[in-house]
């Protein structure tokens, strides 16, 4: 009855490049996130290699001191905001709706908007390399170094505006996942039956929601200081430089958990699947995830022990930080107990997951060491810190992403990655990683400060820096091997089975690889945790449907999200150069202002059009669904 009306609307379906620019399908947006995040991962990785080449011998002058500052700033910023988070969003987009048995995300349009704003923000940040004034105040961009007095060129402006735009994208992406998980679950999929990766994505999205607005304010204040002469962080006009540190880390510490929680989720899925056992201590795992998310907001000042907060504040933040080791420890033991007594298959994905556990424990242990405020005064700003956060971010997050990519690749692309090459890649990357960063603990303890361009001969730093550089190159080779694996997989036909690992436990393995546009021909009825495994154990081949087959309503594709992102890009670029360029036809506005206004007009016009034009969507007919299902009709 209801559908007859909607059939009247023309079905717009684009093909080729327009299909990708206008798509609101979460699976395609996931692939876009993967491509963009992968690209920025390569850029950030190249920057890392250049840093290590500069440091491979004492007093090297491969790059200039200024370029080195630009490299470390852009490496950190790119890897955190433009590589790690988008790669996680790629997996979340590709998997979450499938895991909860949903046909779509809650806000397909907003999802697409999130991607395009992220991409244009990231591009704006990296345009700085082309223009030649690159952010060079560190990824934390501390004031007053980031102020106009010490960073006079447009480098930090690119940081501020690029991150602001990319941050908007991340924030709305987070809201989309929260609502999707709350409102779109299949019948029977209660909260305590949700797969662990979905739980992790849920808590991560909540952290994004509450952490990113703080960054928005910090970046806006820094922008006002730089572009309009405000005095937030300028002590000579009554401002406070430490205020930036507080705002940045109130955002920045939850950000660390935004990154690592999804990796925890991936590891939980992979280990459980390839141990062929139910995840040990599921409810304690959920509880630990929530607790980590909660405590993540209470510990930001442990990045600032040496700023002089006083003993009481230092002690409290120290204790709060150490508390986080408790839920994290619960998780580690749960993974070990999941493997205990399981019939473990060491696939490439599982190798990454198993390699993750000891590596992350090492990063966690140095974390507890750093949490001890008096000891931190010694470690602060040394290579020990560099080693610590690379152990948790590369050894934790990046291994988790690789595990997830190998695991879900067939579901995303219908092709299984080559297992042999995958395992070789793991060993190359894993050994390279430990070579690079293990020695940096000792470099730090010996007194090598971080962020230095050169070091002198005869300090005992030479050999370890050499080892570190060799390790970095091995990680680079590992990454190239992964790319070769990807390319090779695309040379093969799409032949992956529904459940290519044969031990799939969750709903995404009950549907074709890759999933059809509408995900589930019939919404499944979920009868327990590990929904698919439960059906398998009871001798069924698939899920019990919760509804008959019928036409499926889909949202229309739209170019507007792309336009909104493009408008913000143009606006950011214009306003940044407003003080530099000549006036526009004798008005008080400069050319930069005009470009900025044009950009904002594009964005606001797109928003207006989105509000005014109702999206009726279209229907996928029963006949087409039956055809997809293999002509069962």
């Amino acid at each position, binding site marked *: 009855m209801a559908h007859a009306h909607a059939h009247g609307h023309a079905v717009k379906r684009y093909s080729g490049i327009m299909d990708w620019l206008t798509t609101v399908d979460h699976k395609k947006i996931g692939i876009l996130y993967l491509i963009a995040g992968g690209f920025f991962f390569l850029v950030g990785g190249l920057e890392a290699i250049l840093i290590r080449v500069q440091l491979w011998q004492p007093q090297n002058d491969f790059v200039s001191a200024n370029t080195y500052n630009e490299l470390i700033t852009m490496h950190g910023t790119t890897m955190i905001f433009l590589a790690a988070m988008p790669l996680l969003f790629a997996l979340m987009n590709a998997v979450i709706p499938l895991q909860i048995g949903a046909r779509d995300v809650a806000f397909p349009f907003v999802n697409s908007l999130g991607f395009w704003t992220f991409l244009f923000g990231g591009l704006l940040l990296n345009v700085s390399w082309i223009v030649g004034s690159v952010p060079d105040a560190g990824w934390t961009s501390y004031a007053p170094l980031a102020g106009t007095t010490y960073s006079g060129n447009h480098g930090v402006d690119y940081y501020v505006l690029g991150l602001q735009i990319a941050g908007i994208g991340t924030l709305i992406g987070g809201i989309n996942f929260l609502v999707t998980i*709350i409102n779109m679950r299949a019948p029977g999929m209660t909260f305590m039956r949700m797969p662990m990766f979905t739980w992790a994505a849920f808590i991560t999205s*909540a952290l994004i*929601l*509450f952490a990113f607005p*703080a960054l928005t304010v910090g970046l806006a204040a820094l922008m006002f200081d730089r572009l309009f002469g405000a005095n937030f962080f300028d002590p000579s006009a009554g401002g406070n430089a*430490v205020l930036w540190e*507080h705002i940045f880390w*109130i955002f920045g510490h939850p950000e660390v958990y935004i990154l690592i929680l999804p990796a925890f989720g991936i590891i939980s899925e992979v280990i459980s699947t390839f141990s062929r056992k139910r995840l040990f201590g599921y409810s304690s795992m959920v509880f630990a995830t929530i607790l980590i998310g909660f405590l993540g*907001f*209470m510990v930001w*000042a442990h990045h600032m022990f040496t700023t002089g*907060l*006083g003993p*009481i*504040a230092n002690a409290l933040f120290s204790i709060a930080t150490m508390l986080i080791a408790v839920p994290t420890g619960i998780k580690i033991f749960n993974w070990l107990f999941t493997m205990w007594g399981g019939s473990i298959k060491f696939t490439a994905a599982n190798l990454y997951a198993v390699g993750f556990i000891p590596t992350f424990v090492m990063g966690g242990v140095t974390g507890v060491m750093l949490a001890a405020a008096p000891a931190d005064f010694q470690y602060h700003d040394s290579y020990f810190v560099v080693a610590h956060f690379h152990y948790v971010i590369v050894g934790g997050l990046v291994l988790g992403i690789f595990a997830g990519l190998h695991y879900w690749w067939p579901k995303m692309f219908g092709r299984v990655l080559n297992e042999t090459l995958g395992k070789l890649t793991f060993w190359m990357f894993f050994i390279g990683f430990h070579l690079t960063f293990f020695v940096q603990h000792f470099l730090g303890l010996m007194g090598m400060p971080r962020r230095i361009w050169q070091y002198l001969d005869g300090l005992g730093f030479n050999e370890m820096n050499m080892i570190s550089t060799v390790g970095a190159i091995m990680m680079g080779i590992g990454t190239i091997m992964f790319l070769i694996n990807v390319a090779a997989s695309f040379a093969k036909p799409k032949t992956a089975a529904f459940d290519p690992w044969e031990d799939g436990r969750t709903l995404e393995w009950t549907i074709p690889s890759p999933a059809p546009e509408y995900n589930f021909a019939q919404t499944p009825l979920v009868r327990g945790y590990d929904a698919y495994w439960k059906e398998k154990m009871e001798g069924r081949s698939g899920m019990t449907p919760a509804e008959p087959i019928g036409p499926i309503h889909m949202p229309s594709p739209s170019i507007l999200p792309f336009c909104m992102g493009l408008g913000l890009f143009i606006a950011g670029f214009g306003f940044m150069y407003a003080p530099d360029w000549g006036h526009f036809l004798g008005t008080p506005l400069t050319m930069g202002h005009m470009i900025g206004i044009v950009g904002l007009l594009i964005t606001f016009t797109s928003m207006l059009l989105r509000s005014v034009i109702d999206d009726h969507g279209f229907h996928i007919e029963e006949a087409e669904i039956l055809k997809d299902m293999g002509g069962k009709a």
Partner: protein
Amino acid sequence: MAANGSSPEQSGRRHKVEGPKKHIVAFVFSILLTFIAFATVIGGEINKDFIYIILLGTAVLQVFVQMAFWMHMKDRGHRFAIIGILSGVFIVFTCVIMAEYWVWW
């Protein structure tokens, strides 16, 4: 349209059209609290800390009234809305209080 002012049974849920009275009461209450806040400051001559307590108390009370009545937070089906807002409020309060108390004083 008019046919819809029908009995609750017809749609199967709470359906009575609520009158404006409740909201006018909330409005009067808000105005009153605002008045108390302004009067305390203009009246002056009391202990500074005491004034701060009254100001923050009236503000929090007023926000509570508005959230409950005007933003329908006391109605059913607002569980995640309440969790969402309260998490935000909780984080804000911890941050503001920590920043104010330990860092600046």
